[in-house]
C-alpha cells in the first residue's frame, strides 16, 4: 500500500505522525510522488474529479453542517431529546461517501450525518432517533445504510459479518461494478478500545472480508483524549491484525475520498479489509448534553476552527477557479430550505401509537407479548373510559 508521507504537524497539534494529505490547509494541492507498484498514487485517484464533482462535495459538506446547526437548534427548542453533531468531520464523511458504489453497505455509528446525507437518507427520518420517536428511523435496504447503533463498537462486527455474507454471495472480485460490494464500518477513536472492534478485525482478516474499517479519530471520546485509548496512532491497530492500514488527513475531503477509493477497490476485488484512521476533530460538543469546557481548552478548539474542512475545500475551489458566487448563494439557499424542511418535518412527527411498543418485539406471535398487549389495551381503554366518566361526573356536578 502506498503511504503518502506528509508532515502532519500542520493538522495535528500534538501528533506528528505522517498521514495522507492531498490538499493543504491553505487550499493548494499537495504534490505526491509517483508510486511504484501496481497501485495508483492517491493523487491519481482524485485526478478525474471535475469542478462539478468538487462543488458537489462542497455542497454536501455545507448541507451537513446546516443539518447539524438546525438539529442543535431543534434540540434546544425541546423538539429533540438529544443530538450529536458531526461538525468538523464533514470531510471525513462526505469524502468517503462520494467514493462509495451503489451496492456498498454502510454501517454508521451515530454521528455519520454526512454519510447519510450523501446516501440520500431522508433528513427528517435521520432525526427520529434523536427525537425519541423511533429507535431506528429509516429502511436500511433503501439506501444501503444500516441503522445507527448506540452500543459503541457492536456494529463493527455486524459490518464484518455482512461482508462475510457478501463473499458467500459471490459479490466480490467479479469485476462488475454493479455487483462487487464493499462494506464500510464507521466508528470513532474511543470505539477502538472495545473488544468487539478488535474481534471484528480478527474475523475480517482471517476471512479476507470486504470491509473497510473507517475510524474517525476526532481526538475525543466524550471527555477523554485519544491518548486514553492508545499510546500509538490508531491506524497502527489494523496492522497488528494483518489488516492493511492507512492514516489520512480527515479534514481533507480529497484525501479521504482517495483513501476510501483505494480501500473499496481492494474490497471489491476480493482482496480483503482495510483499516483507515481519518484524523479529524470534533469541533462541537460530544452531544447537546455535553459541556466540553470542562475538559478541553478553548485554544485547541480555536486551533481547529482555523482548520475547518469546509473552509479548506472552499479554498481549493477558489484556488482552482471552481468557485462561483451565484452557485455558492444557491447552496446557501438550499441549506436554508433544508432547515425549513427539517423544522417543519420534525415538528410534524407525532408520537407513535402507545401500543406500538408491543410491535415488532418478535416477528412471530409470542404469548407473553400478546398477553401484555391485551392487558395494556384493556387498561388503556378502561382508563380512557374512566377519564370520560370523571369528566361527565364533573360536568353534572357543575
Amino acid at each position, binding site marked *: 500500500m502506498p503511504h503518502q508521507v506528509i508532515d502532519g504537524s500542520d493538522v495535528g497539534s500534538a501528533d506528528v505522525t505522517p498521514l495522507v494529505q492531498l490538499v493543504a490547509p491553505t487550499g493548494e494541492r499537495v504534490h505526491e510522488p509517483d508510486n511504484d507498484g501496481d497501485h495508483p498514487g492517491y493523487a491519481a485517484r482524485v485526478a478525474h474529479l471535475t469542478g462539478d464533482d468538487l462543488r458537489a462535495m462542497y455542497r454536501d459538506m455545507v448541507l451537513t453542517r446546516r443539518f447539524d446547526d438546525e438539529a442543535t437548534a431543534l434540540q434546544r427548542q425541546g423538539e429533540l431529546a438529544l443530538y450529536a453533531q458531526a461538525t468538523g468531520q464533514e470531510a471525513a464523511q462526505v469524502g468517503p461517501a462520494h467514493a462509495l458504489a451503489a451496492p456498498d453497505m454502510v454501517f454508521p455509528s451515530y454521528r455519520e450525518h454526512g454519510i447519510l446525507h450523501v446516501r440520500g437518507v431522508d433528513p427528517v427520518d435521520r432525526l427520529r432517533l434523536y427525537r425519541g420517536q*423511533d*429507535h*431506528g428511523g429509516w*429502511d*436500511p*435496504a433503501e439506501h444501503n445504510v*444500516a*441503522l445507527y*447503533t448506540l*452500543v459503541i463498537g*457492536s*456494529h*463493527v*462486527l*455486524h*459490518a*464484518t*459479518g*455482512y*461482508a*462475510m*455474507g*457478501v463473499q*458467500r*454471495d459471490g459479490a466480490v472480485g467479479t469485476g462488475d461494478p454493479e455487483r462487487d460490494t464493499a462494506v464500510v464500518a464507521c466508528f470513532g477513536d474511543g470505539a477502538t478500545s472495545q*473488544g*468487539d472492534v478488535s*474481534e*471484528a478485525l*480478527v*474475523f475480517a482478516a*482471517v476471512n479476507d472480508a470486504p470491509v473497510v474499517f473507517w475510524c474517525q479519530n476526532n481526538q475525543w471520546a466524550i471527555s477523554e483524549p485519544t491518548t486514553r485509548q492508545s499510546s500509538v496512532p490508531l491506524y497502527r491497530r489494523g496492522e497488528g491484525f494483518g489488516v492493511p492500514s492507512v492514516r489520512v488527513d480527515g479534514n481533507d475531503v480529497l484525501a479521504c475520498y482517495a483513501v476510501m477509493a483505494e480501500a473499496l477497490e481492494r474490497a471489491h476485488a476480493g482482496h480483503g479489509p482495510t483499516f483507515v484512521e481519518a484524523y479529524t476533530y470534533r469541533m462541537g460538543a460530544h452531544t447537546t448534553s455535553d459541556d466540553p469546557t470542562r475538559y478541553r481548552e478553548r485554544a485547541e478548539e480555536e486551533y481547529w476552527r482555523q482548520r475547518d474542512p469546509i473552509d479548506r475545500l472552499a479554498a481549493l475551489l477558489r484556488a482552482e477557479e471552481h468557485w462561483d458566487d451565484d452557485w455558492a448563494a444557491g447552496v446557501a439557499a438550499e441549506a436554508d430550505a433544508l432547515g425549513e424542511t427539517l423544522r417543519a418535518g420534525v415538528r410534524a412527527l407525532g408520537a407513535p401509537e402507545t401500543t406500538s411498543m408491543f*410491535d*415488532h*418485539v*418478535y*416477528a*412471530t*406471535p*409470542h*404469548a*407473553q*407479548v400478546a*398477553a401484555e398487549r391485551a392487558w395494556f389495551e384493556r387498561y388503556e381503554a378502561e382508563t380512557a373510559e374512566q377519564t370520560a366518566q370523571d369528566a361527565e361526573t364533573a360536568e353534572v356536578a357543575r
Partner: protein
Amino acid sequence: MSTQTMPLAKAVTAGLRAALEADPSVMLMGEDIGRLGGVFRVTDGLQKDFGEHRVVDTPLAESGIVGTAIGLAMRGYRPVCEIQFDGFVFPAYDQITTQLAKIHNRSRGRIQVPVVIRIPYGGGIGAVEHHSESPEALFAHTAGLRVVSPATPQDAYDMMRAAVASPDPVIFLEPKGRYWSKGDVDLDSPVPSLDDAAGPDPLGTARVARSGTDVTLVAYGPTVATALSAAEALAAEGTSAEVVDLRSVSPLDVPTVAESVRRTGRCVVVHEAPSFFGSGAELAARLTEECFYSLEAPVLRVGGYHAPYPVAKLEHEYLPSVDRVLDAVDRTLAH
C-alpha cells in the same frame, strides 16, 4: 419408514442437516465445529458434506461469532451459532442482549435476524467450572429472544428445524447431560410452521409428557426425565403425577400448565438453574395469579442453589434429583 432410534445429540445433528439441505442460506458457525465436529460431535460430518463456507470454524471469540452472525443475517443468511459450553456464552451476552434481541424492534420490523444460538447446557457430566450451567433465565428476561430446550430426540429434531426456520432469534439450549439418551425420531415429520398466528406456537407450546391427577410436575430439557422418574416412583406409592414438558422458557405456555394445575391443585417446578430468579419463580408467580383459587399449596420449586455450580464431585448434591422432587411433592401434599 423414516423413524430411527437415535441419541438426542444425533437428533440435533439430523435437524441441522435437514435445515442445511432445505435452505442454502442456512449456515453453521462456531469453534471446532468443522473437522472436529464440535466437542460433542453434534456437527460431525457436516463440514465435509456442506463445505467450509456453510460450516465455519470461527476464531475463538464468542462476541465475534454472534456479532458476525447478526451481520450475516442482515445479508440474508440464517446462521446457527454453536457456543461450546454454557459458561462461554457470556462474552457474547452483549451482542445477544443489546443487538440480536433488539434489531428487529429497532428497525420496526424492517430487519429480521434469524440467528440460532445453540448452547449445550446443564450439568451431570462431571465437568470442570463453566461447563455445567443453565443460563436460561438470563435470556428469558430479555424481550426479543425465544428460549427453548428439547427433552426428547424427536423434539430436538423438530425444534431445531423450527428454530432455524424462525424469523426471530432463538436461544437453543441442548441438555448435554441427555445427549446420549435415545429415542425414536421420525425424520419425515414436517417442519413446524411459525407463520400461523392462529395455530399453536411450534416453539412455544408445552407438552403433557405424562397424565396425572394429584400433582403437576413442570420441567424442561434435562429435568423432564427426572420428573418422569419421580412420577413413576409416585405412581408406585399411589400418587398420580402429571408431567408437563415446557419445551419453551420464552414464551412460557402458561395456559397448558394452568389447565393442569387447576385440575391437580398442586405444582412443583423442576429445573437445574438456580431457583433464585429462575424460571420456577416466573411460573410460580404466574400460576398463582391464574389459579389462585385452585391451588391447595404454594407452587414449589426444585432447582439449583444460589451458589456457583459446584465441583463435579458434588454436582449430584446440587442437581435436582428424583428424591428432591419426591420431597417437594410430599411437602405440597402435606398442605
